[in-house]
């Protein structure tokens, strides 16, 4: 059942709006040279930080479709009746979300780095930092989606919850402290299924 759930969520991600956060990511990366000016030295210095801000804001876009549609349609109830723990459902959703979000993000980092005048070295470092950070980011997105599911104005609330919690990832990633970034990402990935599972149970009426 959990395998079927992951396949379903991946299919829904790709047939739905998986390209939307990516387009948003590229758009934010495009805005930076307009805002800062065409000075290549300055751009390449702020490039990695700008990439991460673009990635964090892009991660907010899919939140409202991660958990709420399945809660409203009774899919989460039926999964529970089929014997799946809410924590397993959340873990499956995290994996499926990461699969639809991270590879496309890593791919679009290549054109984004060109817009920011980053050289090959900087691009490689940014790709590694994003690869380490995206599992934590995907886990955080699902947890926040579960906590805000069914609430009015869930989208804005999700932003207020997700962005502060993603700050450790951001700090360690742009400081090139990859081990600390990996630790933060691991902590988020390990904790999120339990937070999301409890939130799903608590949202039942």
């Amino acid at each position, binding site marked *: 059942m959990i395998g079927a759930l992951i396949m379903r969520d991946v299919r829904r991600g790709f047939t739905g709006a998986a390209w939307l956060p990516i387009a948003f990511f590229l758009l934010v990366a495009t805005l930076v040279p307009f805002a800062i000016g065409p000075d290549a030295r300055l751009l390449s210095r702020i490039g990695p930080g700008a990439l991460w801000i673009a990635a964090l804001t892009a991660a907010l876009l899919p939140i409202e479709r991660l958990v709420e549609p399945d809660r409203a*349609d009774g899919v989460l109830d039926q999964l529970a009746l089929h014997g799946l723990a809410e924590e397993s459902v959340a873990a499956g959703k995290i994996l499926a979300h990461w699969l639809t979000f991270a590879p496309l993000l890593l791919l679009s980092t290549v054109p984004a780095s060109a817009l920011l005048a980053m050289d090959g070295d900087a691009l490689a470092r940014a790709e590694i930092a994003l690869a380490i950070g995206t599992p934590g980011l995907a886990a955080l997105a699902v947890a926040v989606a579960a906590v805000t599911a069914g609430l009015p104005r869930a989208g804005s609330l999700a932003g207020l919850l997700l962005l502060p919690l993603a700050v450790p990832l951001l700090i360690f990633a742009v400081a090139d402290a990859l081990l600390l970034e990996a630790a933060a990402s691991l902590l988020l990935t390990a904790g999120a299924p339990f937070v999301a599972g409890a939130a799903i149970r608590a949202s039942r*009426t």
Partner: protein
Amino acid sequence: MKPLLRFAGVSLRRGGRLLFEGLDLALHPGEALQVAGPNGSGKSSLIRLAAGLLRQEQGQVDRSPLALADDHIALDRELSLLRALRFWGGGPDAAMDAVGIGHLADVPVRLLSSGQLKRAALARVAASGTPLWLLDEPLNALDADAVARLAELIDAHRTGGGGVLAASHQPLGGNWRKLELTL
């Protein structure tokens, strides 16, 4: 014989209001129990408690493997009806024919009417192969043909040793025990 569903001294509180307390009931194989009562008396909550989706305040609930049909469709709207039902396992084909939606197998779920969706939810329950069926307002949106087909399905399920707990304020066809909830 072990009951399929047993409530022993169960109390349920929703939003600070006590819906019922000290409720005892047992549903044995072959039995059907209708929970009746006015709007807001806790019929749906009782069904969700029986399903294990709500937690009782006091008492104990023992349940067999079960399937639930309520107002939520729990089917992917962009898929064809057959593919959407297959996600939940079992072989839905026979059950789809039994509720009269076999000819809709290739139609996307988002195009179905509310009566057809209700039939689909009943087909999911019939295909589940579980001994205990929980039906919340099963007659909503159903036409006379579907009501007759549902009665046949329930009869066959009971003959095969299954049990049914249904919440409805309308009379259900056939031979049902009744549990009346009050406000």
